[in-house]
């Protein structure tokens, strides 16, 4: 299986932008998610991103296609990085470009919201106190 939306390598925002934009686009909206150094009061050193790769790739492709069909003017690229990322590194990048800014912003925002809802990717935080899966840890229903 060829992975277009998942990578194990650092994300190059500039290259992504060049691959997405067209000469007809006057608005270029970029969103990047990065590893921050804190979560719910704990300090965070790194995050390990794991995925059900085959399904995550399909879900990401489905979301991209869905948004493109809802907004036919927009060019959209989405890439999620997996593996161990340190504080400050980019985990997800979304580039939405269009003639005008309203659609570019909207699609960029909507893409990250849909991705966070349904794509089977999980993160495990590493802090000085140890490692924790974010969300459900199997003990308490949250």
């Amino acid at each position, binding site marked *: 299986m060829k992975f277009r939306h998942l990578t194990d390598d650092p994300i190059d925002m500039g290259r992504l932008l060049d691959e997405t934009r067209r000469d007809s686009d006057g608005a270029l909206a970029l969103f990047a998610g990065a590893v921050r150094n804190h979560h719910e009061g704990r300090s965070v050193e790194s995050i390990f991103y*794991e995925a059900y790769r085959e399904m995550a790739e399909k879900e990401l492709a489905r979301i991209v296609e869905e948004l493109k069909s809802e907004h036919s003017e927009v060019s959209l690229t989405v890439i999620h990085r997996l593996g161990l990322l340190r504080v400050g590194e980019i985990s997800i990048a979304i580039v939405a470009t269009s003639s005008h800014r309203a659609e570019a912003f909207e699609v960029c925002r909507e893409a990250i919201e849909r991705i966070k809802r349904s794509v089977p990717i999980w993160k495990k935080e590493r802090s000085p106190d140890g490692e924790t899966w974010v969300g459900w840890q199997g003990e308490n229903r949250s």
Partner: protein
Amino acid sequence: MQIRLLCFAVLEEIAGTREQRLEVATGTTPQDLWAMMRGKHPRLSSYVTPPLVAVNQEYAPPTTRLEDGDEVAFIPPVSGG
């Protein structure tokens, strides 16, 4: 019939393995597989309802009737981004 059961993230840790090949009776559902998981792993005993389920890499109801060769996945709450 034979199916593949995949568990990810915290569920992989609890199960001790990501992938299992299981011989199951015709008509088995993901819900039945979850009951089996709960029986085996005390950490899951209070979770009557399975987490999200995917069959052949698409979200599916836990009551889906499985077919020979299906790939079933238990998907804990996702946290990508």
